[in-house]
């Protein structure tokens, strides 16, 4: 079946032609792969490690930066809250003060108004009383003169009588 059977081959003895062929083929392979392929793979591996490590470093930096900002914001927020609380308290205190002040002023004003009113009322009453007294006196005298038929022209006597009468009236009225 094998056409080269004329030549007896031993499987243990290498054929020198095949050694040459294998050697050359393997040498070519070694040359190409070890010169053009594998060193570049090592470079790629290194570049990849660098890239990954760089990426990790960058991510770490960004993380710490973010954390720092967060802390800062938190601090600012807390500060703002304290400020707000303080402002609110102040405002509340101010409002209370203002309220009290206004109340006091209003009370004062109302007291004043009431006092003025009372005073005016008093004055008017006095005036009315005075006027009435004069008028009532004249009326009473006229009336009495007409009834009695005699003119009580004696001034002094007349005033005395009227005044006495009015005083009596007052004292009864005030009772």
């Amino acid at each position, binding site marked *: *079946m*094998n*056409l*080269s*059977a*004329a*030549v*007896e*081959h*031993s*499987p*243990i*003895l*290498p*054929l*020198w*032609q*095949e*050694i040459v*062929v*294998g*050697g050359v*083929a*393997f040498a*070519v*392979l*070694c040359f*190409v*792969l*070890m010169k*053009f*392929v*594998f*060193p*570049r*793979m*090592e*470079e*790629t*591996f290194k*570049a*990849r490690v660098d*890239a990954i490590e760089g990426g990790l470093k960058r991510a770490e930096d960004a993380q710490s930066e973010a954390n720092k900002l967060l802390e800062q914001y938190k601090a600012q927020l807390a500060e703002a809250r304290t400020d707000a609380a303080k402002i609110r308290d102040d405002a509340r205190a101010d409002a209370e003060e203002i309220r009290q002040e206004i109340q006091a002023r209003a009370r004062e004003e109302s007291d004043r108004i009431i006092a003025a009113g009372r005073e005016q009322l008093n004055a008017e009453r006095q005036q009315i009383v005075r006027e009435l007294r004069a008028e009532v006196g004249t009326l009473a005298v006229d009336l009495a003169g007409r009834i009695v038929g005699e003119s009580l022209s004696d001034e002094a006597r007349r005033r005395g009588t009227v005044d006495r009468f009015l005083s009596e009236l007052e004292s009864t009225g005030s009772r």
Partner: protein
Amino acid sequence: MIGQAVALKSDVPFPPEVGDFYLPSIVPWGGLDSLWFTKITALVWVSTALIIVFFLLAYRKPKLVPGKAQWIAESTYGFVRNNIAVEMLGARGVRFAPYLATLLLFIVFNNLWSIVPIAQISPNSHIAFPAFLALISYVLFNYVGIKKFGFRKYMRNSLIPPAPWFVLPILIPIEFFSTFLVRPFSLAVRLFANMFAGHMLLLVFTLGGFAMLQANTALAPISVLSWLMTIALTLLELLVIFLQAYVFTVLTASYIQGAVSEEH
């Protein structure tokens, strides 16, 4: 294949013999017995070309985020680099990774022919190729050892184990024998014998099926069984292909490791 083609005719050559491994020249010049252009040497050239073309194409424009081809190429090299070279030799193994990777690829591709249809014989079933590779490994580990320690210290490291002086007369010849004589021989023969036996097994079961069929038609079921065995053995062969390439590479790395380590 030749065996099968012939088997389809009337005379089935059974059992297969060593001559079946030696195929005629595939080019007319130089005569049919010329050994320069046989199927075997053609397969060696083809596998070499395939590896070179694939790796050059896959690594034409390497990117940080690899594509599929680049990823496959990198995984192959990365496997040898990290799982063989660095694991056995430590950080200094990176220096040997390119050679070990080339060695593994060359053996795997040449082994693979033993189950590729049409080809179906591995160049490594001819001892010339494993022998040449083993010779390189042998020269390599001795060279590395001598370069590191100098000839005298390297020999002392290799030959004199830490043992009482009175056993040394026995141990030194044994060490010499195992390190400097048996190693290259066992490397070559292990690979060669596996590929040779694999091819022989496939031949036996394939041709055996035809032989039985021809001897007696009633044996047809057994012929079918025989061919099923061929398929099963082909799968086994696939395992052996990768295993033997791995073993060859790992042993080479281990010899280098033995040569450069301080302690014996």
